[in-house]
């Protein structure tokens, strides 16, 4: 004796609910009492509407027609009559979720590794003129008066030329000093490099400045600023897309990726700096000393010196530079040149 239930039927042509009697046949639902006559709904074309967390009436769809059964026993009877209506096992649901999670993890991993590669490729494809324009745009964002003292600039240019001796940079390199008290230095896309006056004043010797300059020159020569910018633009857009409105999540992710990127590039720039210093015959011990001094100040009190924030110094980096430090060579600048450089921001 097949179980019988009562339900309300709407045929998909008119907004009318009709009371029908439902029988669960072997392979179809049989509805009786509708104005259109007896109906047969083969199970494989019947869809149960999942209304999320509702235990009570069951709603079914067959094409555009709808059926509502209030009796809470109907669901179980339906599952018994046809296996396809069995509630999906927790195991299967879990499997789907884990599968989706694994897929996302794979995507995240490929992004993590692939994005730097993509960024370097994109940056390499940048024509020099475009890179210079990008650099000019970035430079325009940084406040600070350019220091113009001719003797100071001449000393700086001399040092730059010495460091670059024997190398042909892909663009014109210009090093300048900005009148800011922070201890910072940076390179923008293209060949523009800026040192802050604060760096010059707090440096113990010209060799220290030479070390920092060599580091920034390395960044510039290897197109790191462009890569970094392309990467930052690229990932922020990617995160935006993936997370939609999850603004906070995106920012966290962005920072995470950007930082990791910098560490890798920092290492490259360190090696490049050591090579430049060696090529110019300037001792690199001072560079290591600068690091350690700045690191100690950073640990001693609040107010992170700006250079460290954008050039994170790990024990490993310092150790690496210290190990490769050389003592021998000629000083970076003569005594007069060093004095001139320190006074570059003093208007004559």
């Amino acid at each position: 004796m097949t179980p019988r239930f009562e339900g309300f039927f709407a045929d998909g042509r008119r907004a009318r609910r009709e009371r029908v009697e439902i029988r669960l046949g072997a392979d179809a639902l049989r509805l009786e009492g509708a104005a259109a006559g007896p109906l047969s709904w083969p199970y494989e074309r019947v869809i149960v509407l999942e209304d999320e967390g509702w235990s009570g009436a069951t709603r079914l769809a067959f094409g555009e027609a709808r059926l509502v059964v209030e009796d809470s026993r109907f669901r179980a009877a339906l599952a018994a009559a046809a296996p396809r209506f069995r509630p999906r096992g927790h195991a299967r649901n879990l499997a789907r979720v884990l599968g989706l999670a694994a897929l996302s993890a794979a995507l995240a991993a490929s992004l993590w590794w692939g994005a730097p590669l993509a960024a370097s490729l994109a940056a390499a494809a940048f024509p020099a003129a475009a890179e210079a324009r990008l650099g000019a745009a970035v430079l325009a964002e940084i406040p600070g008066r350019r220091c113009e003292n001719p003797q100071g600039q001449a000393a700086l240019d001399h040092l730059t030329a010495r460091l670059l001796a024997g190398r042909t940079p892909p663009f014109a390199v210009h090093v300048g000093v900005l009148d800011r008290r922070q201890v910072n230095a940076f390179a923008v896309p293209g060949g523009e490099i800026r040192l802050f006056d604060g760096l010059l004043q707090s440096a113990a010797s010209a060799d220290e400045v030479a070390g920092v300059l060599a580091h920034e020159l390395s960044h510039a020569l290897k197109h790191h600023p462009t890569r970094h910018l392309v990467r930052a633009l690229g990932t922020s857009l990617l995160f935006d897309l993936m997370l939609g409105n999850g603004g906070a999540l995106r920012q966290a992710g962005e920072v995470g990726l950007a930082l990791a990127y910098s560490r890798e590039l920092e290492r490259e720039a360190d090696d490049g700096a050591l090579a430049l210093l060696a090529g110019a015959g300037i001792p690199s011990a001072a560079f290591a000393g600068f690091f350690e001094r700045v690191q100690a100040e950073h640990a001693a009190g609040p107010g992170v010196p700006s250079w460290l924030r954008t050039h994170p110094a790990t024990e490993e980096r310092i150790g690496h530079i210290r190990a490769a430090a050389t003592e021998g060579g000629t000083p970076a600048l003569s005594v007069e040149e060093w004095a001139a450089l320190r006074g570059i921001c003093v208007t004559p």
Partner: protein
Amino acid sequence: MAMTNIAANETAPTSIAAFRKEVFGAREPGLAYDGRLGELTVLWLKTLLLSLLTLGFYRFWGRTRIRKYLWSRASLDGDRFEYDGTGGELFRRFLVAVVVLTPLFFLPLALQLFGAPLVLVEITKALQGLFIAFLALVGYYAGRRYRLSRTVWRSIRGGLGGSAALYAAKTILAIVLTVVTLGIYMPWQRVTLWRYEADHMRAGDASFAFEGRGRDLLGAWLTALAVLALAVAAIGGLAAAAGLFDPQRREALRDAATMPVLIALIVAVITLTPLVWGLLLVRFNAKFLSYMASRTRLEGVRFAARIGTWRLLRLQLGNLLVLAVTAGLGWPFVGHRMLKFWCTQLAVSGVESLAYLTQETPPPKSGAEGLAQLLGESGFA
């Protein structure tokens, strides 16, 4: 036909439901909503967790599930609504939107990098802003169309005709007119835009219609504008009295006792004006919504609503609070509140004539709202 008057009772859902069961028996002749905060929260947390786990991929399916819940908790004349969109549809259209929009975002930058003249870059940036606003409006209308076409009641499907691009253009034009007329055009703006939407909304073969005029709402709007104008005039007058524009007067007043009084008055007006104006805006909105409901009909079915200023203010502030506290992720709760609000406020009469709604041919299912998603509209609207 007697108008079904649903008392705007502010008690918990269970007692409204009980009251209704008493009066109407098992079948509720109007709109009802029995969504539960607890159930919704559990569902929300589940979908949130899954979205996090999948770095955001799951959110299309999560959104669909939440809509299915909300829709199914609303009912009309005893029959529940149904949402039959799928997460896959949302995801696919999202991808299309990404492909279309990404080049657009990068266009000014690319132009700048490849040496285009600055003028061209600036023009492109300005146009880009306008174009994105246009696309956002298109996305909004397309989103409504999608959701309506996935809404089913008693096997009859909803729909929205008209052109999203035209709607977007109309909206932009209306906003320009409002600005140009110093705000006076606002009632006409709201009415015109709602009329376009309502006239194109369908339930099966039947069409909705809106018979309202902007003129009818001018009173409430002018009150708000007048207060603003008065406030500006008051500030100006007080400032002039305090010698803001006249150094000699300022000197003369320097030691007088009136100066601090004037300053205090100016500060008072400046602080009070946004509050008062905000309230008057809400009042206008409440009147507009009530008007909108009362002048919209669907064949023989009529709607009515009498929305009070304070009721609307509580709704809107509450929604803002929810979104602020959940950093925007709590849109399902806003949806829940909105549904509850409308199902209690909106009276429906002539429900019997709904039995004559037909659907001769199954209506087309339109594409999903990829643009709206990408441009930041979260869920319920």
